[in-house]
């Protein structure tokens, strides 16, 4: 297989496109998944109260 411009561009326009679209959709779904809201809120607040020492 030769690494030509045509091959690279076809690869970018097919696999590259799909991979970026799927990835961005997946991340958006993850970030806005309703049931994860609580977990994110807790994580956001956790940094405000972490100086008491390690748990282990």
């Amino acid at each position: 297989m030769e690494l030509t411009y045509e091959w690279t561009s076809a690869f970018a326009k097919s696999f590259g496109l799909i991979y970026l679209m799927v990835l961005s959709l997946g991340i958006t779904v993850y970030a806005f998944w309703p049931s994860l809201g609580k977990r994110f809120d807790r994580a956001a607040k956790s940094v405000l109260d972490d100086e008491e020492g390690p748990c282990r």
Partner: protein
Amino acid sequence: MMTRLTVAERQSAMFISGLVAVAGFAMAVAGHGDPMGAHGWITLLFAATLFFLAGEALYHDEPTEDRSAEYYDDPTKAGILISLAWAVIGMGMGVWVAAQLAWPDLRFDAAWSSFGRLRPVHTSGVIFGFGGNALIATSFHVMQRTSRARLAGHVSPWFVLLGFNLFCIIAASGYLMGVTQSKEYAEPEWYADLWLVVVWVVYFVLYVRTLARRNEPHIYVANWYYMAFILVVAILHIVNNLAVPASFGAAKSYSAFAGVQDAMTQWWYGHNAVAFFLTAGFLGMLYYYLPKRAERPIYSYRLSILSFWGIVFFYIWAGSHHLHYTALPQWAQTLGMTFSVMLLVPSWASAGNALMTLNGAWDKVRTDATLRFMMMAAVFYGLSTFEGSFMAVRAVNSLSHYTDWTVGHVHAGAMGWVALITFGSIYTVVPLLWRRETMYSWKLVEWHFWLALAGTVIYIFAMWNSGITQGLMWRTYTESGTLAYSFLETMLAMYPYYVARVIGGSLFLVGAILAAFNVVMTIRNVGYRAPQIDYPTASEAGEPAIPAAE
């Protein structure tokens, strides 16, 4: 600090530094008569000092306190101090090279003090010395707090910190001797590069092992940024530095790539050094220390996740915008340009997220210079990412490339964003780390803030003026189609701006010296504060912090 290690840990520290000392001696012998030999002696001296420090500790008793009851902060403390020392060295070098451009006689006719050798000392000194040490130190602090777990190991954090500094010393001393592989931000030669790979792999393993011990269900977003910084910098460093040494006894190697492939690999590395060294890691700082200092959780945690993945996946494609109008194929240039423009979205999402976090805490921004450092860093982050996307557009680049505008852009990012967020984080973390009531002098923090801001603004305005003047003069033609200005005429036009740059840089340097003084005085002169709960849980905003166990 060595006496806080167990006997077994002191022995393994001796074993490791002994091995490094032997390797240094081997380098000194093999590289006799070459700069590599000098590097061998430096390595030997560095490792032998550590060997005897660890050995001396063997005469002392083992620590008796329960080490698992507290975080392990000694490497963080050392890292913060080393970082401030590099800040003064690196920025001092910057002022010197800036002054050389305005007044070339300041070279004093020595080979080692020529612009080409001092400039990488400045860039590596501030990026790796100041920025890198601050990143390593704060990452140790943040990963422990956000995981509520101790560092996974006592020797490996020291290995990472001191090993990285050995790399920095080898790099800086090598430049002065004329050692370089002529790759921007990747100048050190093959043996330094190999050493950094070892250090970086240990760093990565340490980070992952500490996260694996975490007692929180979710990995806080700051850790993701630090992880991206460590992982991607490892990949970039290894690929860009693939080279064959000319001999095992000399500081000279040949890149595995040639021609335009070499240029593309270098700028894939170079731009992602900006992305993952100077952005991702410092965003990790921002996402931890800004909410901490403002006593408010980040405005939108969801947005921080989205912008994280946006930054990671867009930045990696943006490097080719450094090679507009070169032998690089047009489509590859366009790809870099497109991704650079798209990058504006996650970049501004991060900057906006930081500024929105301060909504409701603006009174604190007014009174607390530490928080103002971080606020201003977010503003400069927004400004310089906009400027970067704009300059990556090919038509704009035709005016800006190779001019001082690029230098101005880099410094808007490096001074305005990277240095301000680092100083804000240092002022936040120093009283916490050393268990002090407050910083030694808040007035000095205030002075530092205004010096840094004035220095940055003077610097970037000078470079905008200089760069655009230069770019326009280069592309002005006479009626007969020849260039209107000679190179020397453009140099004369730039002179006043070069003087202004020296002034701006000097103000910034004075601020960094004040910071180092303030930190040292805090450690020596400020009263102890009880360590049980050193974070105020009663927030002024009326939002009591929620305990970990809900």
